[in-house]
Each structure stands twice: as structure tokens, then as C-alpha cells.
């Protein structure tokens, strides 16, 4: 029985780590601009698909991955420059629709470029799964967890130790004030999109061996990432990680113990429950209404 539980837990943590990485991307952009970027999933897709096509060109895997992640980052910059920046006065919902339009556009391009088929990215290391106390774990899951941890630590260092990171944080706190002290907000926003897209690209590459990859893989993963970010509390890095892991574990446990038919419904009910008691998610900032 314990091995069963452990198996569900492993499964949940692997999926959850994926969601967490995506949620972190949402959080970054949300923090810098208060935009919910529905095209976040497309960064993942680009990461995975570009890796596949660079490898097909005969590039060695590490180089292919690096290029793919950079391509994803470039896409993030272009998105901010040409879709978000020109619409700075738009309503929240309007911005959401713009990012939805962008995601359809990017997906359409990917489909033209790479076709509609699913592709495999090989495991980074051994295909042989690891067995622990009667449960098994894919080696790629360890890569997801490992790279996830590295990314989180890197982000923490980035925001606390570097000028650029601090500038992004400052902009998220108060645009006006940061402009006064000489931070170029547009530049900072672009950086936020860049980092977020790089993050998405990395997530896309590390999960591709598990989930496969195709031009439309970003839709569902992006949505799950948004869900994770909202459970954790939009704008909270810790929240994104915890929210992602929670969502993954709840899905796996629900599929294992309750009903596989309704596991997604269970996950969504959990969100409603969390928001019911904590209207700003688990770690969302408490805001006093100022009037």
C-alpha cells in the first residue's frame, strides 16, 4: 500500500514540477506587468519543438537545447515588443485576448513550420527507470526536478543579487516610482518577458521526453500552469512552486484513489475550495483596499 502511495506521489511530483516551472513563467510576467500571458504555453512548445528540429539537423543535443531555449526567449521579447507594448492602455481582458491571439498565431506558425505530428525528445540520460521502495521513477523526472530546483535557486539569486532582477521587482511594486529613480520600465518589462520565455523554453525541453511534443502541446500545459499560479497566489514565486506541486499531486492522487474520470474535476474543485478560503491564493499578497 505504501509503495502505491509512493508511486502516486512520484507521479504527482513530476507533473507538479512541470506545472511549477510554467507557473513561474506566469508569475514573472504578472509581477512585472500584471498581464496574464496566455501564450506562456507556446514558449514550452517552442522549446520542445525547436529542440527536435535542431537535433534533426544533426546538432548535438546540448547545443540543440541551448538554441531552442534562446529561440523561445527571442519569441518572448518579440511578444512583448510587438503585442504587449503597443497596447499598454488596454483593459485587463483586452490584454488577455491579445495574448490568446498571440498564442494562436505562434501555434499556427509552428504548425506551418513543423507540421502536426508528435515528436519524441530522447531522455537526457538512461531510459532505465529508478526503483525506490517498490515505486518507480523515470530518470527524466529527476531531470525535471533537478532543473526545476536549479531554476528556482537561480531566480532567487537573480532577483536578490543582481541589479536587473531588483529593477524588475521594483517595477512590479511601483511603476511610477521606479521610473522616477531611472529604471526604464519598458526595458524591464521586456526583460521579464525574456526571462519568462527562457523559463518556458527550459520547461518545454525538460518535459518533452516525458510528454512528447507537438505544435499544440502548449495549450493544456499553459492552462495548467495558469491554474497552478492562481492556486499559489499570482505574483508569488513560492506560490507558483507550491501551487504547481499541489496541483500535480492532487491530480495524481485523485486519479489513483478516487476516479480517473474525474481527476481533473477534483483538481478544479480544489482550486475553488482554495480560493473560497483564501481569495488571493495560498501565498498571494494581502492588499488593503485604499480609498
Amino acid at each position: 500500500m505504501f509503495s502505491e502511495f509512493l508511486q502516486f506521489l512520484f507521479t504527482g511530483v513530476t507533473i507538479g514540477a512541470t506545472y511549477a516551472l510554467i507557473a513561474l513563467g506566469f508569475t514573472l510576467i504578472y509581477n512585472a506587468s500584471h498581464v496574464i500571458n496566455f501564450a506562456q504555453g507556446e514558449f514550452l512548445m517552442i522549446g520542445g519543438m525547436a529542440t527536435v528540429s535542431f537535433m534533426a539537423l544533426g546538432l548535438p543535443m546540448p547545443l540543440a537545447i541551448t538554441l531552442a531555449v534562446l529561440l523561445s526567449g527571442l519569441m518572448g521579447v518579440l511578444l512583448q515588443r510587438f503585442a504587449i507594448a503597443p497596447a499598454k492602455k488596454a483593459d485587463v481582458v483586452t490584454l488577455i485576448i491579445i495574448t490568446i491571439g498571440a498564442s494562436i498565431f505562434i501555434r499556427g506558425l509552428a504548425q506551418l513550420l513543423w507540421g502536426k505530428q508528435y515528436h519524441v525528445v530522447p531522455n537526457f540520460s538512461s531510459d532505465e527507470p529508478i526503483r525506490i521502495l517498490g515505486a518507480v521513477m523515470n530518470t527524466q523526472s529527476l531531470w525535471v526536478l533537478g532543473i526545476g530546483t536549479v531554476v528556482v535557486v537561480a531566480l532567487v539569486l537573480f532577483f536578490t543579487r543582481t541589479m536587473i532582477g531588483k529593477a524588475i521587482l521594483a517595477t512590479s511594486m511601483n511603476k511610477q516610482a521606479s521610473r522616477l529613480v531611472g529604471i526604464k520600465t519598458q526595458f524591464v518589462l521586456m526583460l521579464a518577458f525574456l526571462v519568462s520565455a527562457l523559463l518556458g523554453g527550459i520547461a518545454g525541453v525538460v518535459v518533452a521526453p516525458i510528454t512528447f511534443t507537438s505544435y499544440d502541446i502548449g495549450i493544456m500545459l499553459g492552462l495548467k500552469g495558469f491554474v497552478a499560479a492562481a492556486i499559489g497566489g499570482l505574483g508569488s514565486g513560492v506560490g507558483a512552486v507550491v501551487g504547481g506541486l499541489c496541483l500535480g499531486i492532487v491530480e495524481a492522487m485523485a486519479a489513483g484513489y478516487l476516479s480517473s474520470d474525474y481527476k481533473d474535476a477534483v483538481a478544479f474543485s480544489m482550486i475553488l475550495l482554495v480560493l473560497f478560503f483564501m481569495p488571493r491564493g495560498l501565498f498571494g499578497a494581502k492588499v488593503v483596499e485604499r480609498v
Partner: protein
Amino acid sequence: MGMTILRRMAAATGITLLAAVFTMSAHAADPIKIGSFLSVTGPASFLGDPELKTLEMYVEQINENGGVLGRPLELIHYDDQGNASSARSFASRLIRSDRVDIIVGGSTTGATMASVPLVEQAGIPFISLAGAVVITDPVKKWVFKTPQSDRMAAERILEDMKDRGFTKIGLISGTGGFGASGRTQTLNVAKRMGMEIVADVTYSGSDTDMTAQLTNIRNTKGVEAVLNFGFGQGPAIVTRNYDQLGMKLPFYQSHGVASDSFLRLAGKAAEGLRLPGSPLLVPESIPEGDPQKNIVRNYKAEYEAKWGQSVSTFGGYAYDGLMLAVNALEAAGSTDKAAVRDALEGIQGYVGVTGEFNMSPDDHNGLDPDSFRILEVVNGGWVLID
């Protein structure tokens, strides 16, 4: 300045749109119009994509060879993106605006069924490329289909299991149309054959890990064989998870993954699994003298030469659909809809990629379960078992 132009462009879009809709329709009356709506993009694109490629390729080929009844074929097709409501809209457009003579299409059961009321009302021959048994059972006057039904697939799989002495089965299925209908048929057939489904779990099309569901099957007492009914990338993930969990029970998939791309995705995890499939995947294993051999070999060679990717069973459905339509048109000697329908119903002994079709007023599918061959994955390739 660029901004102004763009803004004007955006403004013009709305007006252009309205104008464009009103100018649709009106084509020359000369060619025979074959209408098609397929799920070329979206979650069922691996059905619609090879289907469309097949139709395009053979319509072109037929026209090069002089067409049908001395008239060229014109293929009018739309992408329903796997959405049944769009499928219905496009069916309406094909029938009422494009005024096609026959429809070959409908990648998914949902898309097909959503269009059936229109088709029946308009009285236009419709050859569906979707799987579920409800499409032709009960028989609908104007509706035919080329793939074997999911009920046949279930029968074929369960028979093979029974032959090998397995009667207690663990079932895992997708929650999409294909998986859900397949699950229902499997439950029914199992009951009829005196077999027992001891575990019954599902996964949704976008899931990325099915380990939890498989763990439950593994921990169910008495499971002797496992069947996965589903299509898309899901079954490939199931296959990999199955392997990772070290599950050694005999493993079956449905015809929903009968394609080489499945093998590519699942890799060595697919080793040893069985499924009911078209001989298309094993053209060299078909005995010489089998009437299907040449047809299958040619289709495979032509498709792969033209598109540079491996054939799938689904493209074969479209091939058969188009050829049945052509046969019926020729037999009817005109595009008269009732005559074409009657001709379709009268087709006997047409050998296609999928199998031998013998239509009748009670059977608008015309295939028998033996047209499914049981295949096994051995050394990364398909091997004909039965």
C-alpha cells in the same frame, strides 16, 4: 505612420469579412464535386492530416487519368479542427453552398454524427471515415463508413485474448470520443463473450502521465491482460508508463494507434504489444495472392513517396472512402444522388486498403471483423500474427 495603416487594416477587416461571406459559392458546374470536412488540425489532426493528404493525392491522380465518368473530380474540403459544431457548419456549407455531389469525410465520430441529420435531410451520399459503431448501427439511409467499427476492434482483441487463455482484463481508455466509445463496446463485448473487465480506468487526451491509473490496474487482483483503447499521443505515454512500471502482463492497444508514428513515439516500450490493425502496416507479410496485397503495397509506396512520411491506417480509410465513391459514381453512371447511394449500397467485393467491402441495405460498413489483422510489435516493427 505604420500604426495608422495597421489600424485601417484592422478596421477594414470587418467589412471585408462580410463581403467575403457573400461572395462564397458559385463554382463551375462541370467537375464532380467531392466534399470533405476533416480534423486536419486540433486534437484529432493525426486522423485528418493523413486523410486529407490521401484525398488530395488520389483526386489529383484520378484526374490525371481522365477523371470519373469523363469528368474531373473537384475536392472541396474544410478543416473542422476536431470541433463537431464546426463540422456541422462545414457540412452545411458543402451541401447547401458548394452543392457537392458526395461527401467523404468526418474524421471523428462526433463530427460525423453532428452532420448526420443534415445529410439525411438533404439526401446526399456520405462516406464517413470515423470509427464508432453508432454511425452505421442503426443503418441510416445516406450514411456509410469505411473504418471497421470499434465494436469489431473490441471483438477482435477480446477473441485474441480468449484464444491465449486470458479472461480477466484490465481496461484503460481515453475520455475522448474514440476511447469512450471503444470502452463502451469493450464492456459490452466482454459481457457477451463471458469475459470480465476487472479494472476500468481512464485518462484525458491532454494527460502527460498515466502512471497512477496503471498502478491501479497493476494492483488489481487477477488481471491477466491489459487493453488500452485510445488515440493520439496518450496511448504512447501509456505504453511508456507501462514499461516503466515494469508491468509484464500481455498488453493490447486498439487500432487507434495502428501507425508507424506510434512506434516512433513509444520506442522500445511498445515491444511485444498487440493490436488489431490494417494489413497496411505489414504489406510484405500478406501472403502472395491475397487480393489486398497489391493495393496495400501501392498505396503505401505512393503515399510515402509523395509526402515523405509513413502511412497510417487513417489515410487508408480515406483511400477506401474515395474509391468507394468513385466506384459508386461509375456504377450509377451519373451524379444522381439517389442512384449513387443505391450503387454504394450495392457494392460487393470491393477490395480496399482496409479490407473487402460487401455493402448491403443492412450493413453500410461492409467489413467483417477478420479484416482486422492482429499485429504484434517485434524488434520495433509490426509482425502479422493472425
